[in-house]
């Protein structure tokens, strides 16, 4: 079967999540006989195609169309729809990025074919792939089969596969032309921008390092800050820390603070009182470090360490560097 992997541009390099999608395709090809094609488009199509040529793939399709130089959901959807219609792909893989969420549903509508989004696992059966995704705020998993004969659009959750597992090789780049009717591009886009860091928005954080009373005093919070930095995450706290004035109120997680559900919630010196727990129990993975083995936090944590945060955290920071 033929699998297409669509590459997303990250400033001239292939986006990590597209690489992960390639890994997924490569894994499938180990189990089921398949051909892997990747698609490079946009203003950096040449660079993306070049980078892709070092991986074990069957074909690299490259589109250099001026209509696609800037991202537009219509433009990308039209282009990929054409590619799919002109070829016989069984699956089209994407990384589940914000950009993919923006345009792939349009392809689904155009082709009237399903888009299985945000999968974390795959398994093969009967010559087709069964995908697994998280549902109900990650409390349950759902398996979805793909036994129709038509094409399936599929995206993968960040880090479901690892770019470490990419198999290298070499493949040919094939330039293709497509027609894009510019009048179909309905939106105008400005350049992406970053906002000045004002206020802590924990709700979109993937990794949170959180401190409770166990941190002891205001000065000690720096080790948590350093850990957050080392992990690429945000700093938050339980209520008593805010009340004591050691952190500003927008750091507070809990029933009267923010509700968070990051991939990793690292609770340092937090006892786990209910007012705090209701604000973070949706976290995908909770790691708790606390001196008290009876602390309620251990009832909801996935990983627990009974220990001294002042001994463990500095060493952890060192190892992460």
């Amino acid at each position: 079967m033929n699998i297409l992997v669509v590459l997303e541009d990250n400033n001239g390099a292939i986006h990590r999540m597209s690489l992960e999608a390639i890994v997924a395709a490569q894994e499938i090809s180990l189990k089921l006989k398949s051909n892997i094609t990747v698609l490079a488009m946009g203003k950096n199509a040449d660079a993306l195609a070049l980078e892709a040529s070092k991986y074990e793939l069957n074909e690299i399709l490259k589109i250099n169309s001026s209509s696609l130089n800037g991202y537009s959901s219509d433009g990308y959807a039209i282009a990929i729809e054409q590619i799919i219609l002109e070829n016989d792909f069984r699956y089209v893989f994407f990384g589940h990025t914000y950009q993919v969420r923006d345009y792939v549903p349009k392809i689904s509508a155009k082709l009237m074919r399903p888009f299985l989004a945000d999968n974390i696992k795959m398994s093969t059966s009967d010559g087709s792939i069964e995908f697994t995704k998280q549902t109900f705020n990650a409390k349950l998993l759902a398996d979805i089969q793909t036994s129709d004969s038509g094409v399936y659009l599929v995206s993968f959750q960040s880090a479901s596969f690892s770019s470490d597992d990419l198999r290298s090789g070499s493949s040919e780049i094939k330039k293709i032309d497509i027609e894009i009717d510019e009048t179909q591009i309905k939106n105008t886009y400005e350049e992406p921008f970053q906002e000045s860091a004002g206020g802590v928005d924990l709700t979109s954080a993937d990794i949170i390092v959180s401190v409770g009373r166990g941190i002891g005093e205001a000065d000690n919070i720096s080790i948590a800050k350093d850990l957050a930095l080392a992990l690429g995450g945000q700093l938050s706290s339980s209520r008593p820390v805010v009340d004591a004035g050691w952190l500003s109120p927008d750091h507070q997680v809990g029933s009267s603070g923010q509700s968070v559900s990051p991939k990793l919630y690292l609770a340092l010196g937090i006892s786990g009182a209910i007012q705090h727990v209701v604000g973070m129990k949706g976290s995908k993975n909770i790691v708790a470090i606390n001196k008290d083995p009876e602390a309620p936090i251990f009832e909801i944590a996935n990983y627990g360490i009974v220990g001294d945060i002042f001994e463990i955290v500095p060493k952890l920071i060192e190892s992460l560097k």
Partner: protein
Amino acid sequence: MKIAVLVKQVPGSESPLSIADNNIWLDEEKVAYIMNESDNYALEEALLLKEGTQDCEVVVVSLGPERVKKIIREGLAKGADRGIHLNINSNDLTDPLSIAKIFADALKSENFDLILSGLQSDDLGHGQTGIIIGELLNMSTGSLAVSTKLDGNQIAIKQELEAGFFQNVRMTLPASITIQSGLNTPRYPSLKGIMGAKKKEIKTLDIDSLDQSLKISKLYLPSSSNEITMIDGSSDQIVESLVKVFKSEIKI
């Protein structure tokens, strides 16, 4: 101006989730249903747009069995003008494409200028329905909007990107836009609103069963839920184990 808000009724975050005997959906008996969170923000956004626009009608639309009338009433209590209940006697609606088609077919004749819906639903979380509907109705589409601004026959949105980036996008109406949570403060209905909602119109359209190409073959609990793994040893050993957990289990 006509704005449609698409709302979905989903199990609340604290609702018990027991799996039905057929293992492909929930046992509905014990579920505590609420309006999907991002839809609530979409509703508020629509009501704010209505407040800022002359002659604007907000219509709340929901697909599902009889019980979804409750969230339509909630929308009416908060200030929407009327509701449409796409009545389907089915509890496992899992395919966003066919769901979107139902909405598109039912709403086509209404000629909405703007369709707002939540970014994704807290049950299955496909996050596509609003955009597919827009595409099927040949509307402009936008997603992950954290702010909206009407400007004549155009709408400008601020779209959220990864890593703290944003992008301003402009499109001509009609448009279908999915709304990110947190962009406004959803209002609480006043008593007058609640009482008044009882009198507002909810049109019921019966939908025959649908043909879904995306179906769940198995719904189950992740194997290692609620079981804590204690990491012990000397602090060095602990740190080593922890880093390993970060890399291989949690994948960060």
